[in-house]
């Protein structure tokens, strides 16, 4: 019974892109201790395991809480990476000798794709982090509001980020709606 519960918890964690080996091991120890304590008080083994699992709580909810606590750090790293890559691409694009818009667009798409593949939550945020710098630089440099048309460049990192997030979902076998916000 405990093994079945842990398998369910493990599957819920994997669906969220988390290996969770340490969590599974700790919860296995906890359930074993809990069931053993009840058996020592005269409860039958099946009843003790069932009660221990009930006390532990719903596996999907535990996996959700573990994922929520871990993704805070993942989100910060992903956003920092997106901004760093976006600034680097914008710097290269701003050089006087640089005149290859195709490579710039491909770099924006690729950078957002890789980040969303690693951290598939909020792909729109990774796209903004990567792609907002070239349009902003153009507006500041030219001083013309019309340069805002450059924000159309965001379509490339947006396409990359959402494609990356869908790829990750396909790889990890997710079935529910992807977490866009």
């Amino acid at each position: 019974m405990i093994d079945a519960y842990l398998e369910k918890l493990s599957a819920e964690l994997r669906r969220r892109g988390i290996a969770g080996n340490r969590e599974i091991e700790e919860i296995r120890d906890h359930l074993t201790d809990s069931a053993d304590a009840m058996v020592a008080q005269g409860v039958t083994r099946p009843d003790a395991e069932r009660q221990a699992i009930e006390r532990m709580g719903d596996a999907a909810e535990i996996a959700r809480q573990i994922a929520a606590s871990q993704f805070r750090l993942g989100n910060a790293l992903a956003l920092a990476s997106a901004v760093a890559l976006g600034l680097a691409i914008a710097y290269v694009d701003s050089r006087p000798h640089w005149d290859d818009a195709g490579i710039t667009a491909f770099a924006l798409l690729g950078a957002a794709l890789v980040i969303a593949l690693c951290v598939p939550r909020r792909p729109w945020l990774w796209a903004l982090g990567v792609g907002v710098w070239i349009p902003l630089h153009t507006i500041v440099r030219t001083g013309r509001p019309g340069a805002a048309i450059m924000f159309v460049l965001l379509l490339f990192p947006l396409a990359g980020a959402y494609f990356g997030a869908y790829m990750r979902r396909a790889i990890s076998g997710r079935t529910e709606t992807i977490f866009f916000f």
Partner: protein
Amino acid sequence: MARADTLKGHLDLLLLSTLSDRPAHGYAIAERLRDTSAGEFDLPEGTLYPALHRLERSGWLASRWAEVNGRRRRVYQLTAKGQKARAKQHAEWSDFARAVRAVVERPA
């Protein structure tokens, strides 16, 4: 049993306080919480682990694998940073509780 959402708001302080006198593994922490509160804090035990790991990432707890009663267990202990955090949260909670009591128990 205390409402789970009410308990959640105080979970950090409860966990830090439970570990303030000696280290413990997850099951022992859940037992201490339940026993010390006379069964009032009987929260879903699985919610302990995300909270413990979060407190560990904050540097308030440290953990290690250790042999407990012949079994290998992940044991948590309060760090110096955690002790300061506990003292601060305890003081804030005491002020809050005093203020709530003053309002709800004022003579009619």
